[in-house]
C-alpha cells in the first residue's frame, strides 16, 4: 500500500512544481557539446537496407550518422572513399574490384572486415531481405576476397552500380552481429561503423546519438546529437525561434526569410537534388503532340519560383538538375504563350474551345505544391487549356503510377542524390519502370540501349540526347529544382548538402 502523509504530499507537489517552473535549457549550441536538431521526419526503422525507410531520402542523414556506405559522397554530390577506399571495373567490365578500408571497428569494438562487405552485398541482393533495389546488387556475384581487396563477377552490367553504393539502401551492416541478434535484435540495438552510436531512441520523439571515439574519419565535433522528430513545420519554426533546437530544416520559405535575419540565427537555402515535375500520361488528348508542347510552353516557371517560392528554386527544362551528370544547359523549353496558343490552334483548340483534362497534385506534401499547380492551371487557361485539379494523397499517387492510371497530368517531386541520368530520366520515363507515366515505343527504343552501355562518355551523351528528344516531344513537364532552407544558431557552421541530407557529423560544426 502506498501511503502519503500530508507533509510528503506537500513536498512532492512542491518538488514537481519547482521542476516544471525550472528555467528551460535553451543554451547556445557551441556552449555545450550537444547538437539539437529539429528534424522534419520520424525515424521508423534502424534498418537502412530494407523497407520503406531505406528509400526515404530524408532519413539518409540519420542513417549516415550511424552507418557508413560503401562509397561516400561530398556535399556537391561528388563521390569519395567510404568503407571502400577504391573501386572499379576491369577493362571489359566483366569484373569489379573493391578495396576495403583498414583499421575500422564496429560500434561494439569488433573489427570491420571485407567479409562484412561481401555479406552486406549478398544480403541486399537477396530479395527476401526486403531491399528495394535488390536488382542492383544482384548484378554482381561470385565474390573473392584477397586481403583487403574484393573481386566479383559482373552478372548483369549496371553502369550506376558504384553510384548506388553511395545511395539509398547501400549501407554496410555487421555480418557477425546481425547474424547473432537477427533482424529484431538489430532493430532494438543497431550498430554500425558510422561517426555516431545510438544512445537512446523513442519513436516519434527523438534519437540521441553519442560520438564514436574510434571513428575512422575522426571524432565528430559534437559529443551528443539529438534528432528531435518534429514533422510539423510550425513546430520546427518554434523550435529554432525559441532556441530549443540548434538547427532545423524544411521550414516555409516565408519563415526562413523572417528568421534568417533574426539576431542569433543564420540561414542557408541552396539547391538540392530534388526536382518538381508534371508527369504526362500517354493516351487521350495527351497523344496530341501539339497539346503536350503547348502545356510546356505555356508555363512561366520563373514567375512561379519568384512569386510562390520567393525565388528559392531554379527552373529546369529536363529531368536533370545542374548537378546531375547528364545536365545539358543547351536544352531549353521557352516560356512562349503565343506559341502555345498556336500549337493548340493547329489541333483545333482555343480559349473559347479549350482542351480539357485533369491534373492531379498533392497538397502540402511539398512546399506550395497545390499553389504551384493552381498557377500552372491559370497559365494554361490563358492559352486554351482547361484543366481540373484533383488533390490526392501521395500514397494514391504511387498506386496510380504503378498501375499506369495517373491522370493525364500529375505533379510529383523526384529525388536523385547520385545525379545519374538513369535514376532520373531513366526510371521516370522508361515504360518498363513502375515509376514512369509516359509509355511509348519510340522513347523506349532510345532509352533501352543506354541501360547496358559500358562506355561512360557515350552513355552520358546518350542520356542527353534522350532528354533533348523528350523536351522536343513534350513527354514530361519539368518545373523546378528545389532549394532546401536550413536555419541554425549563429555559433554554428553549416555546409549545405546538395543531396539534402543534413549530416551532423560532417556538415555541422562549431563556428
Amino acid at each position, binding site marked *: 500500500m502506498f501511503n502519503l502523509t500530508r507533509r510528503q504530499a506537500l513536498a512532492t507537489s512542491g518538488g514537481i512544481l519547482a521542476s*516544471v517552473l525550472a528555467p528551460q535549457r535553451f543554451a547556445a549550441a557551441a556552449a555545450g557539446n550537444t547538437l539539437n536538431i529539429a528534424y522534419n521526419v520520424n525515424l521508423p*526503422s534502424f534498418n537502412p537496407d530494407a523497407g520503406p525507410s531505406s528509400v526515404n531520402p530524408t532519413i539518409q542523414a540519420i542513417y549516415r550518422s550511424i552507418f557508413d556506405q560503401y562509397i561516400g559522397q561530398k556535399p556537391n554530390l561528388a563521390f569519395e572513399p567510404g568503407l571502400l577506399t577504391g573501386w572499379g571495373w576491369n577493362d571489359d567490365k566483366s569484373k569489379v574490384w573493391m578495396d576495403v578500408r583498414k583499421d575500422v571497428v564496429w560500434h561494439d569494438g569488433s573489427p570491420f572486415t571485407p567479409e562484412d562487405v561481401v555479406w552486406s552485398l549478398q544480403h541486399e541482393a537477396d530479395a527476401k531481405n526486403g531491399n528495394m533495389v535488390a536488382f542492383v546488387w544482384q548484378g554482381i556475384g561470385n565474390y573473392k576476397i584477397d586481403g583487403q581487396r574484393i573481386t566479383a563477377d559482373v552478372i548483369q552490367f549496371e553502369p550506376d552500380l558504384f553510384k548506388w553504393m553511395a545511395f539509398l539502401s547501400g549501407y554496410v551492416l555487421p555480418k557477425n552481429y546481425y547474424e547473432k541478434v537477427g533482424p*529484431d535484435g538489430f532493430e532494438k540495438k543497431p550498430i554500425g561503423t558510422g561517426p555516431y552510436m545510438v544512445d537512446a531512441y523513442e519513436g516519434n*520523439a527523438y534519437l540521441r546519438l553519442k560520438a564514436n571515439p574510434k571513428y575512422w574519419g575522426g571524432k565528430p565535433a559534437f559529443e551528443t546529437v539529438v534528432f528531435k522528430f518534429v514533422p510539423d513545420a510550425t513546430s520546427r519554426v518554434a523550435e529554432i525561434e525559441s532556441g530549443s533546437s540548434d538547427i532545423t530544416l524544411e521550414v516555409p520559405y516565408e519563415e526562413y526569410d523572417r528568421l534568417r535575419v533574426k539576431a542569433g540565427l543564420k540561414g542557408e537555402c541552396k539547391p538540392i537534388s530534388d526536382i518538381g515535375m508534371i508527369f504526362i500520361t500517354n493516351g487521350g488528348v495527351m497523344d496530341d503532340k501539339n497539346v503536350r508542347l503547348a502545356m510546356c510552353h505555356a508555363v512561366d516557371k520563373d514567375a512561379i519560383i519568384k512569386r510562390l517560392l520567393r525565388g528559392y528554386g531554379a527552373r529546369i527544362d529536363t529531368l536533370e538538375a545542374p548537378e546531375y551528370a547528364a545536365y545539358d544547359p543547351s536544352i531549353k523549353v521557352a516560356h512562349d504563350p503565343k506559341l502555345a496558343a498556336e500549337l493548340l490552334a493547329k489541333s483545333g483548340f482555343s480559349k473559347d474551345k479549350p482542351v480539357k483534362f485533369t491534373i492531379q497534385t498533392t497538397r502540402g506534401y511539398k512546399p506550395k505544391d497545390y499553389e504551384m499547380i493552381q498557377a500552372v492551371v491559370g497559365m494554361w487557361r490563358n492559352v486554351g487549356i482547361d484543366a481540373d485539379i484533383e488533390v490526392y494523397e501521395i500514397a494514391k499517387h504511387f498506386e496510380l503510377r504503378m498501375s499506369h492510371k495517373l491522370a493525364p497530368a500529375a505533379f510529383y517531386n523526384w529525388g536523385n542524390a547520385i545525379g545519374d541520368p538513369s535514376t532520373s530520366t531513366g526510371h521516370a520515363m522508361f515504360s518498363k519502370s513502375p515509376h514512369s507515366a509516359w509509355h511509348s515505343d519510340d522513347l523506349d527504343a532510345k532509352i533501352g540501349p543506354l541501360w547496358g552501355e559500358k562506355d561512360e562518355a557515350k552513355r552520358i551523351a546518350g542520356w542527353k540526347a534522350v532528354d533533348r528528344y523528350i523536351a522536343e516531344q513534350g513527354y514530361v513537364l519539368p518545373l523546378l529544382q528545389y532549394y532546401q532552407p536550413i536555419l541554425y544558431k549563429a555559433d554554428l557552421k553549416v555546409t549545405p548538402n546538395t543531396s539534402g541530407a543534413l549530416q551532423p557529423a560532417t556538415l555541422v560544426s562549431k563556428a
Partner: protein
Amino acid sequence: MLLAVIFRRAAMALITLAGVAVIVFVLLRVVPGDPVAMMIGPGATAADIAALKAHYGFDASIPEQFRIWVGGIVTGDFGTSITLHRYVTEVLASRLPATLELAIAALVIAVAIGGTVAVAGTLMRRTIGETIIDGVNSILLAVPDFIWALALVLLFAVALPVLPLTGRIDPELAEGFATRFYLIESILTGRFAVAGNILSHMIMPALALALPLAAVIVRILKQSLKEAMLQDYVLLARIKGFRELRLVLQEALRNAIGPALALTGVQFTFLIGGTVIVERIFAYPGIGNLAIDAVINRDFPVIQGLVLLFGVIFILINIGVDVAVAALNPRLRYG
C-alpha cells in the same frame, strides 16, 4: 444491477469490435493507396512487385487476409508493422501509456477548469460576471484543439519560452524507467525532478486538448446547476441560512453532476481522438502521432491495430461512464 450493466455492455462491445474490425480491414483494402506501391524500387519488375506483395501477404484474397489477421488476433498476434519492423502489439504497448497519461492529464485540467468556472458562473448568475463567462466560454467552444495548440506554441514556446515545445521528456532524463507510464512511475518512485520535466512537456498539449472539453463541461454543468438551484430542496437550504457557495457545492452539485459526467465521458473519447493532431504538433510520442505516420505510409497492420485499440478505449470509457452515472443516480441503478 451494476454487474448486469457491465456484462450487457461487454457483450455489446465484442459485437461492436467485430464490426469495427471488418469495416477497417475492408476499407483499407478498397481505398486508394497500396503500401507496396510506396516501397518498390526504381527498377522493380512485375515479378519483384508480386514478390513484395507476397512478402507482406497482400497477394491473398481479402477474405483470406482477414482470416489470417483474425487468426493472429486470437493468439495475440496483431501482425508486424511494415514501416517499423516491429510487432504491432509491441508498438501499441509502447505508445499507449504516453497518450493515456496525456489524455488523463487533459481530463483532469478540463474538469478542474470546467467545474470551477461552472460553479463561478452559477454563483454569478444574472450578473455581468455570468455574461463574461458565457462569452469566453463560447470562444473556447468554437476554437478546436489544434488551434489552441498553435496558440500555446506561440505563447509559451516562442513569445515566452518557458515551456519545452516538443517531446514527452528531455532525452537525457528518459532513462531508468521500468514501465512506459513515465509520469506515474516517476512520481511513485520519488523522481520529482523527472516528473516535473514530464509535466512541463505535457502542459501545452494537455491544455490544448482540455480547453474545448472544459468549455463543454462549463456549459452543461452550469445549466444543470442553474436548474438545480431552483429546486425546493435548495430553497429549503437557503431558508435554513446556507451560504450561496455551500448551496451550490453541497446541495445543487450532487444532483446536477449526472448530465455533465455523462457528457464528459462522451467528450473524453473525442479528446482521445484529438490527440492525433495535437501529438503531431508537439511531437508527442503517443498513439495519435503513430496513427498519422501509419496512415501516410499505409502501414495496414498498425492502422488495423490502432483502430481496434481506439475502439476498445472508447467502449471502456463508455462502460465506465455508464457505471459511474448508474452509481451516482439511484433511479438508474435500480432500473
